[in-house]
């Protein structure tokens, strides 16, 4: 018996069909408001989906922006070469300027020497021995040497590294200045307490934070 035979045999059972129909009529009625609840659920899941998509989009955009920023800021193969070329050009220009300056100085010296010689000839003075000035020797560019920082990054690797190094130097300078100021203030304060210069002398701190002993009557700073 194949599928069709079974199907036909089953389908033609009118009594069973009627029984199933009656059985189905007894089942629970469809609950009211159920479809509205489903629509609300679907709306919620739709909102969640949109929110998730928005979040993912934002994260992707941020990641791309961060990646672009990193690519732009971090030195890579191409930019290192460019930076070295840039540094070379600067050093070469500096060397050229130096050579030109040397040549000019030499020319001036020679001129002066010749004037002196002329004077000596007129005055029958013994001829001075003219010092032979050697032509300017081209120096090797200094900047080609790489100065590495504590982390091993070359300072002249890129303009950004030079900027960072300069900023760090400025910060160091400020720290040293503050330390010196503090030491100086401590010394002045201690000296003033141990041996005050006069009765009208007072300790005054100026805008920059420096302590000074001022004579109130004369309105002058007293050097301790």
């Amino acid at each position: 018996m194949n599928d069709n035979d079974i199907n036909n045999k089953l389908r033609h059972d009118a009594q069973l069909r009627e029984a199933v129909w009656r059985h189905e009529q007894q089942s629970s009625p469809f609950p009211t408001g159920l479809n509205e609840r489903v629509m609300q659920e679907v709306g919620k899941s739709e909102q969640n989906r949109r929110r998730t998509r928005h979040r993912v989009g934002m994260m992707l955009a941020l990641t791309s922006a961060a990646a672009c920023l990193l690519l732009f800021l971090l030195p890579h193969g191409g930019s290192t070469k460019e930076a070295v070329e840039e540094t070379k050009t600067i050093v070469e220009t500096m060397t050229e300027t130096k050579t030109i300056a040397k040549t000019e100085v030499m020319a001036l010296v020679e001129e002066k020497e010749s004037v002196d010689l002329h004077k000596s000839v007129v005055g029958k003075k013994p001829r001075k021995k003219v010092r032979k000035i050697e032509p300017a020797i081209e120096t090797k560019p200094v900047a080609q040497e790489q100065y590495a920082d504590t982390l091993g990054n070359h300072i002249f690797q890129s303009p950004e590294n030079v900027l960072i190094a300069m900023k760090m130097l400025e910060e160091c300078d400020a720290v040293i200045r503050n330390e010196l100021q503090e030491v100086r203030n401590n010394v002045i304060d201690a000296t003033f307490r141990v041996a005050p210069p006069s009765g009208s002398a007072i300790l005054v701190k100026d805008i920059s934070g420096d302590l000074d002993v001022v004579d109130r009557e004369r309105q002058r700073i007293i050097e301790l």
Partner: protein
Amino acid sequence: MNPCNVLGFFVYIRVEGIRKFMERETNEFINDLRRRKPAAQRRLLADYGPMVFRLVMRMVGQTEDAEEVYQDVFVKALTRISSFDERKASLATWLSRIAYNESVNHIRSRRMDFVLIDDNEMETAVEDIPSVNHDNEQVVLLLEQAMALLPTAEQMLLSLFYYENRSLQEIAYITDSKPTTIGSRLSRIRKKLYGLIQQFSEQ
């Protein structure tokens, strides 16, 4: 020219026209569902909701559980409508399949008893239906009583076949089974029902 042939031709044209119109309508409806249009979603719930609820109710038994599963079915169907392939099954069959799977998952999560349709069952054709010496109305009443004693899976199969008028292929798609298995299963259920009403009459 035979007037019957002419009439037949016009009837054919008319029926074909209606069929094409219905097909176009269904395609537009599915496209609207894919575009997540609320009007289409409401129509889907109104048109297919009772059928899905009946199936779920038949399987899980309790109204509260059936409502929960029903919500899950439609949320799943409406969010995954893009995966619906009209060449594989109709929208009703696809929804029934989701409903069946969700109900089975619910039953399993509640550790309730449910007999799954097994393809490895002996596919034996059942020929010998016991003869019943009752009138038609009495047989129907007895069959109805006997149906209440069947497991939920068997009641669901009978409902799909006799009430929803689904083919064996469609039921096989819904239950992820083989049409032959479904046929054998239905034959066995029928035999069981007639056996039960014979027992009732003997008592």
